[in-house]
C-alpha cells in the first residue's frame, strides 16, 4: 500500500498549517531541551538508563506484575476487567453504563480509548461520552482525530476554535483564547458534576499499590476520576511499572520530555473506590486492562522494546518528517516515530508498507526518547521483514550488489550512470521534482587519482 501522497501534498502546501506544526513542536522541543540540560537535570542520562532498564525488566516479567497489579487493585476494593480486544473493553463499558443508567460519561485524555474507538461505540448505544481535555473536546466537536499524542489540537488556530464553538455550541464567535478556554470550563463543569461515569486513561499502573497514575495540566482528569460515582480507568497492559518509588524516575522524565515541565500541574495516584469515611471520590472503580495486540508485540523479541514507550511525544517533536506531514497523515491513532514502529505490529505488517520507509533514519527520535527506544533500529528491522516478504524490489539491489563486488564493472556502470544523469527518468525525475541535480563531474575520483599519481 502506498503513502497518502495527495493528502501529504495538501498538508505540505498549507503554509499556515506548516507554521503551526513547526513552531508548536519547535517550542516543545526547545522546552524539553532546556528542562533536561545538565544545569537543570544533571542525572538525565542516568535516569534514561534506569527508566529503560525498569521498563525492560517489567516487560520481561509482565506475567508477575499483571497478577500483582490485579491483586492490589482488588485489595483496595476495585475490580480488574481483562479485555483481550478493543471490542471487549468497549462492550464492558457500554454494559456498565447501561446498568448504572449513566447516559452521560466524561472522559479525560486517553490515546488507548482512541485506539478502540470507544466514543463511537458508546455513541452507537446512545451513550454520550464527552471529552474533557480542552484539545480533545475541541476535536470531538469538530469530528477530528488527535493530531499529536500529547497536544491533540496542535494544528488548530484560535479562529478554527471560534468557528467550531460557534457552529457546535451556538455561541457568539469569539477568537480570544482565554474566553474559549473559559467556555469549555463552563460547559464541561456541568458535565463533570452530572456524569454517571468518569473514564480516564493511565500514564502508569503501579503493580505494588494497584494504583493508576495520571499526569495532566488542566485538572479535567482529576474531575473525571473524582466527581462521578464510577471511575473506569483504561490502560494497555504495558503501562505497568513495579513500584510507586519507580515514579521517581518516570515522573522526572515524562513532564520534561513532553513539555519541559519538571512536574505537570497535577499528578494523581488513585486506587479503588473511596475508602471508608471519605466524603468524595468514586464509589466503584474498574481498571480495564487492554491487550488488543500488545501480547503480539510482546512476543516479537525484535520489536518488544517499543512497548517501553511512556507516550511523552518527544519523538514527534523531534521528528523532521512529523514536523512536515503532521499527525493526520499517519494511518493510525499513534503518529510520529513511535506510531511508525508500532502501527505495523498492531494493524498488520502487510498494511501501509510505506510507513517504515517514510523516514530518513536521522535518529533525532532515539536521541530524545526518555526510555531509549531505538526507533531507527526498529524501523530497519521492519524494512528487513518487508523485503523478505516482498521480493519485487530485490532484483535491482541484486544487480547493484553484483556490481559493487566487481570494481571494474562498478566503475564502468557508474560512468554510464553519470552520463545518463541528464535524463529525467525514474528516481532522477523524482529527485528533480523537488530540487536540482548537479551536473555529473567529467572524471571520477579514481580517474583523477590515476592522473595524479602519474
Amino acid at each position, binding site marked *: 500500500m502506498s503513502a497518502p501522497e495527495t493528502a501529504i501534498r495538501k498538508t505540505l502546501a498549507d503554509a499556515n498549517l506548516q507554521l503551526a506544526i513547526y513552531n508548536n513542536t519547535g517550542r516543545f522541543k526547545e522546552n524539553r531541551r532546556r528542562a533536561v540540560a545538565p544545569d537543570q537535570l544533571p542525572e538525565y542520562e542516568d535516569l534514561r538508563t534506569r527508566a529503560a532498564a525498569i521498563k525492560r525488566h517489567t516487560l520481561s516479567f509482565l506475567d508477575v506484575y499483571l497478577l500483582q497489579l490485579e491483586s492490589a487493585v482488588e485489595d483496595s476494593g476495585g475490580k480488574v476487567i481483562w479485555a483481550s480486544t478493543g471490542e471487549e473493553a468497549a462492550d464492558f463499558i457500554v454494559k456498565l453504563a447501561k446498568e448504572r443508567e449513566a447516559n452521560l460519561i466524561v472522559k479525560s485524555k486517553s490515546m488507548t480509548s482512541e485506539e478502540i474507538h470507544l466514543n463511537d461505540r458508546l455513541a452507537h448505544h446512545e451513550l454520550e461520552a464527552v471529552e474533557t481535555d480542552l484539545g480533545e473536546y475541541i476535536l470531538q466537536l469538530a469530528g477530528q482525530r488527535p493530531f499529536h499524542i500529547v497536544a491533540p489540537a496542535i494544528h488548530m488556530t484560535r479562529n478554527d476554535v471560534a468557528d467550531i464553538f460557534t457552529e457546535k455550541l451556538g455561541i457568539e464567535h469569539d477568537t480570544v483564547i482565554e474566553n474559549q478556554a473559559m467556555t469549555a470550563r463552563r460547559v464541561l463543569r456541568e458535565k463533570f458534576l452530572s456524569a454517571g461515569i468518569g473514564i480516564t486513561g493511565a500514564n502508569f499502573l503501579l503493580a505494588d499499590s494497584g494504583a493508576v497514575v495520571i499526569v495532566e495540566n488542566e485538572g479535567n482528569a482529576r474531575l473525571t476520576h473524582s466527581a462521578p460515582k464510577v471511575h473506569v480507568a483504561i490502560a494497555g497492559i504495558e503501562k505497568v511499572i513495579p513500584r510507586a518509588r519507580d515514579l521517581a524516575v518516570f515522573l522526572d522524565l515524562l513532564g520534561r520530555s513532553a513539555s519541559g515541565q519538571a512536574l505537570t500541574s497535577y499528578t494523581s495516584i488513585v486506587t479503588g473506590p473511596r475508602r471508608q469515611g471519605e466524603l468524595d471520590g468514586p464509589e466503584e472503580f474498574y481498571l480495564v486492562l487492554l491487550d488488543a495486540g500488545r501480547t503480539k508485540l510482546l512476543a516479537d523479541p525484535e520489536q518488544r522494546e517499543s512497548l517501553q514507550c511512556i507516550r511523552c511525544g518527544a519523538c514527534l517533536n523531534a521528528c*523532521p518528517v512529523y514536523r512536515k506531514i503532521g499527525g493526520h497523515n499517519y494511518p493510525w491513532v499513534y503518529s510520529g516515530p513511535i506510531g511508525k514502529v508500532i502501527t505495523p505490529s498492531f494493524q498488520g505488517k502487510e498494511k501501509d508498507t510505506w510507513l517504515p520507509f517514510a523516514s*530518513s533514519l536521522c535518529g*533525532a527520535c532515539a536521541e530524545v526518547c526518555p526510555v531509549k527506544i531505538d526507533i531507527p*533500529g526498529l524501523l530497519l528491522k521492519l*524494512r528487513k521483514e518487508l523485503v523478505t516478504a516482498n521480493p519485487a524490489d530485490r532484483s535491482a539491489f541484486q544487480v547493484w550488489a553484483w556490481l*559493487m563486488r566487481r*570494481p571494474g564493472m562498478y566503475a564502468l556502470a557508474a560512468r554510464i550512470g553519470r552520463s545518463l544523469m541528464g535524463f529525467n527518468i525514474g528516481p532522477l525525475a*523524482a529527485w528533480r521534482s*523537488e530540487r536540482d541535480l548537479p551536473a555529473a563531474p567529467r572524471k571520477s575520483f579514481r580517474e583523477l587519482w590515476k592522473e*595524479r599519481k602519474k
Partner: protein
Amino acid sequence: MTASHAFIVIPSRGETLAHPVIQSRVMPRRVAIFVTCIVDQLFPNAGMAMVDVLERLGLEVEFREAQTCCAQPAFNSGYQREARAVARHFVDTFDGAETIVVPSGSCTSMITHHYADLFAHDPVALARVDALTPRVFEFSQFLLSLPNLDSLGARFPHKITYHDSCHALRELGLKDAPRRLLGMVKDLELVEMEAAEECCGFGGTFSVKFAQISGAMARTKVDSILQTGASHVVSLDSSCLMQLRGALSRGGHKVETLHLAEVLASRG
C-alpha cells in the same frame, strides 16, 4: 593534543556505543582512504581535497582501487543479504590496512556501528569486522586524533555555516570536532544556523521515495541557512551537501556547498 571524542548515547542495544578514537602518540605514516561511492562518482573534489590535507600533514595516502561502496543503501532498504555481500567486499578490500579514513559520517557509521549487526550470525566474518572497525575513522575524527595538530595551513576568508549531518552527529558524536577544525582555518567566520542539527532530508532512497517530504525538509534547512547570511554551507557528508545544494539551486540562492575537506584544503 588529545583526541576529540564526544560520545552520544545511541540506544541500540541499550548501551552507549562510542567509536573509540585511538590516541596516537606517534603519527601514522600511511593511511588508506575509502572515498565512498558518492564522492568517487559525484564529488571527486571532496576526495581530492581530503588527499591534499592528508599529504600536507606528511602522510602517505593509499587508494585501494578495489573499493566500491560501504553497502549502506542496501542495508537501509532492508536488503541484508545484498548488503552483506558488499560489506564483505569492503572488509576484503581493506584487509591489513592500519588506518582507514573516510570523508563521510554516514558511511563511517555504517561500517563502525552496523557491520557488526550484518555479521552477527557469522563469527568468522564478525571477528574480521571487529578487527577492522576500530581502524576506520571519519575524516575529522582522524585529524583530531593526530598529535600536535594545531594548524592545517588553511585559509578560507568567507562567512560559513555548518550542517550537522545526522549519522556524524548522533552515531559518531561529532559536534565539536568539525567546528574545532574550522576554527583552525584563517579568516573563516562560522555562523551557526538555528536548524543546524535538523535532518536535511536526504536519507538515501527516502529522498526519491518520499520526494515531497524530503524537499520540504530541505527547504526548511535552506531557510535556516539563508538566515545566517553565510555564503557557504559546509558539512562532512556529501549526500547532505547534494541535497542542500539541489534545494539552494532550485530556490535560486547563491549559497554554495562545500565539503569540510575542501575548506580545510583551501589556501584562500
